[in-house]
């Protein structure tokens, strides 16, 4: 076989018929890539979501959608769910057969979820500090690795919580939080989280605040002009702090009982299988709360996802088969149009194996190139899969 002639003529033909070849490559690439990428994404989603769910024994939340509770408590993606009071954390500790980790995932800072939780969370998820220290005071935050990279912040820098609604004057005011630590990357949703103490999250919500001493308030900041009374009522003109510093930390306070303050979920860690059963039994009859097993929720979710995936892959398979048949027809017609050319090349001295190779070159080139592109596409999808999955479940 004349390899030089084969390669020369093959590539020249492909180059001159670029539009046709590009269209065929695009069609064939989609035929390979679509079902494979769907399979890959579902597999990656299953691995990522299920592993985190499996690692979380039980999740306590307000009665309602178990799936929304799972996504809020484990992946921090559903912010608008009903809350449960902080006292349930104490209740669980009081049982002495389980530990509880509070989760308050409602607010965000520059698109990153602010999660109010206790220091036990870091130990539970095996999160380690790459720099700085852990949470000690109100107004401090520890950030995930992705937050540090995307916001370009590190230890000693500040992050400002985003207001809930831009036009709601009575809504949540932004709080300037000091970054005291950055976590090492772990490849989970924790990388994209701003961790704070639950009390800091409540301050963001406006349940706690700090302002000038009432007795030091000016006349314009008081509701009553007289300052003879023991109690002083302040009006809206009083200056509230939007940053917690060493100087103003003592002025921050909460009105009411913090046990009634909200959480979105509580991770429950029973100390044994028996304890798990007892705890589950305790909340089974509770109409206000639900105690779920995230693994079971994920199993149910993926059962549905797999059914849909199978259906989609079958449909794509049928479309793909039709595309391949049309592609085959194009190659066949192309061969029929070129038959004269091949016999002419034969007369010019091309051997039969070179001619045969030229006949299949176009089809081989399209198949090989589309497979190559599909492979590259799959690699790319694999790279962006975590972001894609989190945006899909967000």
């Amino acid at each position, binding site marked *: 076989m*004349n390899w*030089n*002639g084969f390669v*020369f*003529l093959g590539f*020249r*033909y492909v*180059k*001159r*018929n670029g539009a046709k070849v590009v269209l065929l490559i695009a069609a064939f690439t989609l035929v390979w890539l679509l079902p494979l990428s769907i399979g890959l994404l579902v597999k990656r989603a299953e691995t990522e979501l299920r592993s985190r769910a499996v690692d979380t024994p039980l999740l306590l939340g307000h009665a309602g959608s178990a799936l929304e509770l799972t996504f809020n408590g484990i992946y921090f993606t559903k912010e608008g769910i009903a809350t449960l009071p902080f006292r349930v954390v104490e209740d669980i500790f009081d049982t002495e057969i389980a530990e509880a980790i509070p989760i308050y995932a409602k607010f965000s800072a520059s698109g990153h979820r602010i999660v109010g939780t206790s220091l036990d969370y870091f130990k539970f998820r095996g999160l380690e500090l790459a720099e700085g220290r852990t949470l000690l005071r109100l107004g401090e935050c520890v950030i995930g690795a992705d937050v540090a990279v995307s916001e370009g912040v590190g230890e000693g820098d500040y992050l400002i919580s985003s207001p809930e609604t831009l036009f709601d004057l009575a809504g949540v005011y932004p709080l300037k939080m000091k970054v005291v630590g950055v976590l090492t990357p772990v490849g989970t949703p924790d990388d994209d989280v701003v961790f704070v103490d639950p009390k800091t999250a409540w301050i963001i919500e406006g349940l706690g605040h700090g302002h000038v001493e009432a007795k030091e308030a000016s006349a314009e900041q008081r509701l009553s002009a007289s300052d003879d009374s023991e109690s002083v009522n302040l009006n809206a003109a009083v200056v509230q702090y939007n940053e917690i510093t060493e100087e103003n930390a003592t002025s921050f306070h909460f009105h009411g009982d913090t046990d009634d303050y909200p959480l979105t979920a509580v991770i429950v860690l029973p100390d044994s299988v028996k304890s798990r059963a007892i705890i589950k039994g305790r909340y089974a009859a509770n109409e206000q709360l639900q105690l779920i097993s995230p693994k079971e929720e994920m199993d149910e979710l993926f059962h549905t996802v797999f059914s849909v995936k199978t259906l989609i892959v079958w449909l794509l398979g049928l479309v793909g088969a039709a595309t391949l048949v049309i592609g085959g027809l194009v190659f066949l017609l192309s061969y029929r149009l070129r038959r*004269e*050319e091949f016999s*002419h*090349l034969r*007369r*010019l*001295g*091309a*051997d039969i194996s*070179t001619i045969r190779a030229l006949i299949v070159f176009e089809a081989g080139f399209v198949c090989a190139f589309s497979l190559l592109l599909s492979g590259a596409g799959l690699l790319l999808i694999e790279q962006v899969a975590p972001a894609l999955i989190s945006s899909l479940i967000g």
Partner: protein
Amino acid sequence: MIRCDKIQFAYPDEGFDLRIDWLEVRKSETLAIIGPSGCGKTTLLNLISGNLLPQAGTISVADVEIGGLRLEERQKFRIQKIGMIPQSFDLLDYLTVRENIMLPYRVSGALKMNRAVKKVCEALAERTGILQHLEKFPDQLSTGERQRVAVCRGLVTQPELILADEPTGNLDPENQDRIISLLLEEALRIGATVMMITHERTLCDRFSRSLDLLALREEASK
């Protein structure tokens, strides 16, 4: 240069039967083959070039009996000794003019591409007036220019024998004359033998001899 001895070739289903008792063409001779359509002119060229083999008789080209060669040897012999110029040009539309001219060197393992070949290609293109079109594609050329490309490709291997199958059939008289002149001048320059099929009897004067194939066949059938 060419000797055909009692050759016979038939397509029984089509009622075609070509018989030639004796035909000899001397080296450097230029021969015009005339005859009505279907009388076997193209078949005769295919037999001489070894594309077809006679069912009886022998054909020798440059003292080599074509029928005695194996398929690959015959192909190698053809590409080295014979330049073919078809009526339909047979240019590949995805190659440039330059690439079309040098195509035999690309597709045949029997020929080696080198710098001298490129010079021959350019010299031929210059003499045939298509030098400025070397980087163009065939569909950017006029019919006459495409035929000149086909002539250049037939001549680029500097063959000893040129077989031209009505190379002027699609051309106007002015271009016909130009192509014939080119062909004969180039053949003279390299000392090649030329056999050319034509329907134009007026062109026969330009050749050293003309052969009426129908008359030759009738002679054979007597």
